[in-house]
């Protein structure tokens, strides 16, 4: 079943248009990866879907249009974004950051506390630092916190914007393992933007290749890496 679908999605910043009619689809239970060079429009795609920047064209989520919805109501639809550069609340404690993630939930503080405990179990290093200010965490810890915070809203689809940015390879592998696990065992769908093509393609159900705001190729990881031109031009191996 189709979870997220964009049709003729156009977006940009002020007079500059970055996305030129983007067509994208994420089915339930999939991990979809967007690859592309710097400036291809990967982050803009994420920001357009989550409603942070003005956009044109249609975006539907579970068949309902969210193309004109505000960011806060899009979260309420079940779509949570981990912004690039983590976007934690640096002045707030780790635990308060997590509670902010649960802001849209209405199922009571006991259920929220149980989820905090659960994600502390998944990310034990966050549990150790629960009372520290998020700004004092290392890059990897902040990325974990950003993902945990997004999961606190119990999303159906997680948008992850380059979680590997600035992280050591081992930490990146650890993070991706968590995402794969959540996808396999919890049925969480993931839309992932990455430059780390090797690692991301390995776990992707489907890959979109972006160039100057358009999809230039799509397929499974194997299909794309089998194509010599694509492999050399975009994937670098």
């Amino acid at each position, binding site marked *: 079943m189709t979870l997220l679908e964009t049709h003729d999605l156009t977006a940009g910043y002020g007079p500059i248009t970055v996305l030129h009619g983007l067509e994208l689809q994420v089915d339930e239970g999939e991990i979809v990866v967007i690859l592309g060079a710097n400036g291809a429009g990967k982050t803009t795609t994420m920001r357009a879907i*989550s409603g*942070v920047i003005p956009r044109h064209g249609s975006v539907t989520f579970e068949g309902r249009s969210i193309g004109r919805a*505000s*960011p*806060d*109501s899009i*979260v*309420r639809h079940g779509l*949570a*974004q981990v*912004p690039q550069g983590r*976007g*934690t*609340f*640096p*002045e*707030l404690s780790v635990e*308060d950051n997590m*509670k*902010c*993630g649960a*802001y*849209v939930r209405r199922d009571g503080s006991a259920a929220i506390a149980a989820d905090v405990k659960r994600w502390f179990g998944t990310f034990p290093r966050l549990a150790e630092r629960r009372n520290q200010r998020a700004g004092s965490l290392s890059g990897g810890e902040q990325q974990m916190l950003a993902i945990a*915070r*997004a999961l606190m*809203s119990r999303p159906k689809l997680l948008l992850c914007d380059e979680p590997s940015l600035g992280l050591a390879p081992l930490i990146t592998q650890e993070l991706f393992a968590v995402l794969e696990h959540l996808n396999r065992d919890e049925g969480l769908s993931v839309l992932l933007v990455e430059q780390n093509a090797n690692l991301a393609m390995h776990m992707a159900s489907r890959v979109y290749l972006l160039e100057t705001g358009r999809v230039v190729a799509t397929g499974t990881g194997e299909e794309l890496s089998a194509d010599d031109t694509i492999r050399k031009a975009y994937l670098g191996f």
Partner: protein
Amino acid sequence: MERFLQYLFDGLSIGSVYALMALGLVIIYRGTGHLNFAQGEMALFSTYVVYQMGEWGIPIGIALIIGLAVGFLIGAATEVFLVRPVAKKSAFAVFIVTLGLFQGLNWLDSAIWGDQVLPNSAVSKQQQFPTLFPNKSTDFVRILGAEWRLKYLGVLLLVLVLTAVMFLVFNKSRAGLAMRAVASNSESAKLVGIRTHQVLMVSWGLASAIGALGGVVFAGINGTVNLNLMFTVFIYGSAAATLGGFDSPGGAVLGGLMIGVIENMAAGYFPDWVGQEMKLGLAFVVIVGVLLVKPSGMFGTAKVERV
């Protein structure tokens, strides 16, 4: 000792008013990074409203609630209609808008109530501006020889209770969490589903209502209201917020109390040197001193950048 205590008590009481002004400034600054120049004049309008209620024979308890509601509406409307449209363009534009509002509100007050000191026997039924606390000349407690009049002591207690309540709201409630999140990272706040526009509107309303409370208790202490009432309070309140740290509500309250005490001690012990006229200069000395030594204030967090 008696003299010292007297200056201390007077300082703490007047400092409570500065604390309320500073608290309002800090709530707005934390949310949006703007210094609200009209904070004092927004409070003054509500203070005049409370005076007017008194003229109509409405008891001070109800008049205060109405005054605070008016204060909240002024603040919320200012954010929605004046600040929000220009904030996207530049922070400097917001500065100009609040400066314009400062002028505009003062003009409005003068158009409605004139430039006289109110209440006065020519136009008012009230003898003096209504106070929330017992105000007879016998209403005081004596501590080690120094007198603390109940209307002064009451102001301090009011501010301490309000500070405790605000602390709980900020740190324990869902709304407080949202306010802190918006102050910390506005875009991420949107991404977790916080309606940041609503939070900012309520923050401005709250700040303005707190300012209105400051105006009403200050007019109660003075017994009168006039067009210049809140100007010095705004200056002292800014000094207090600078001293405490512009993003720390607790620091703002402590800063307010400290400024009040410093002001009273200086004017009391050095009457020739500082006196009543020169003591406003102390506020500027404090502002410049803090900015030179510790720009983030006592409890503020040093920001790397904030435009």
